[in-house]
């Protein structure tokens, strides 16, 4: 009667989507879209697991998962870097995509996108085309979004309308009132 066969196992899914923030990613499409298939697991080609400590320069073009400690410089020209919840990176990071669930102390350049999950803690500047910050993430630094994406002027109106629709009618714009 409880349709036990429908109850999903509490285990973790294979391809977990990324975090969901309270608004679309800065400079890009909504978070769910950008996070589809995000390489957030230790299934990345290379993995620096918990307990491993590396000092120096890490370079490559494959995806990398860091749950250990890296100090120096990380340069993944075309790869994605995921800093796991136990990961601690004291380095400037250059990658196509950077996902932070642990701690990063250094500048992050994520050519396509940067995601800060709720457990992420970054002390350093961020430079990317698209940025997603989940509630609870800690950022101490400057944000530079590189796309010259035009401002969606209607988006604000939609948000305002949605907020006011709960308590009352949508206010008429001054232009309409004058007419």
């Amino acid at each position, binding site marked *: 009667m409880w349709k036990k066969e429908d109850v999903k196992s509490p285990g973790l899914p294979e391809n977990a989507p990324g975090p969901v923030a309270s608004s679309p990613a800065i400079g890009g499409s909504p978070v769910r879209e950008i996070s589809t298939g995000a390489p957030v697991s230790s299934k990345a080609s290379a993995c620096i697991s918990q307990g491993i400590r590396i000092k120096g320069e890490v370079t490559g073009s494959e995806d990398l998962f860091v749950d250990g400690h890296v100090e120096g410089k990380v340069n993944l020209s075309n790869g994605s870097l995921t800093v796991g*919840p136990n990961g601690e990176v004291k380095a400037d990071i250059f990658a196509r995509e950077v996902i932070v669930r642990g701690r990063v102390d250094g500048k992050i350049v994520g050519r396509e996108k940067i995601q800060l999950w709720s457990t992420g803690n970054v002390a350093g500047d961020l430079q990317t085309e698209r940025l*997603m910050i989940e509630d609870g993430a800690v950022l101490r630094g400057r944000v530079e979004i590189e796309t010259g994406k035009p401002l969606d002027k209607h988006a604000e109106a939609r948000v305002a309308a949605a907020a006011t629709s709960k308590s009352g009618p949508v206010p008429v714009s001054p232009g309409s009132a004058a007419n």
Partner: protein
Amino acid sequence: MSFLNKLGIGVAAGAGSNREVPHTMSSSGRPRANGAAPVAAVGATRPPELRESTRVSNGLKEFLWNLDGLGRGTLLDLGPAWQTTLSFFIERGFRVSSEDILRAWKEFLVEEEGKLREATGRAAQHTLDVTPAARAARFLEANLQYPNSSFDAILLWDLLDYLEPLVAKQMVANLTELLRPGGVVFAMFHSKKPEGFQRYRVVDSATLQVISSPVLCPAQRVYQNREIQDLFSRYRTVKSFVGRDQLRESLFIK
């Protein structure tokens, strides 16, 4: 009793129950990453649903009006890094720097408590100077390190109410140096000691979302009009808006 306990931030409590647990929109059944430990495993507890409300903000409206036509301005946000707030300003061409001062203050106090415990175990000549002035100086040496005149605007929110008065005073002085002439500060002050702890994020150009959060730092004092004017005496214009919720929004133009 340690100074942390005097301030209401006992270390033991701060490590667990007093930890700020921000509201997460995705808390309802977000799938975890493959093979990764759930968030709880790294020390963060899943928050209960936190109360949120919105408030009309004439202060924010005026703040934006003052920044209108600035082009590529620079903004320093001293609250938490909310996606909505950052998006709002970045989409308007601002270069945004973010630094959650209250979180930094709490971490600083916890760190100081540890140092103090160490110092008491050592010789007397190595004791830590715990006078408010020395502590304020140490805190500001580690935070708000930007070149002078780097910002056109600063979002100060209500954080002065939660800092030790001497830190608040010194911080306002430092912020004044960071602000360009003609720059604007948006601050909020509680008219009575707040019972809860709130964080704010920008919804649109005249609306703030108020998020009730677990207490990160207890309120230190309620500033009266005269005290606020004294704090910002180097600013040429002050505008205030008092809301029904007894929250005063103030705008200071350098």
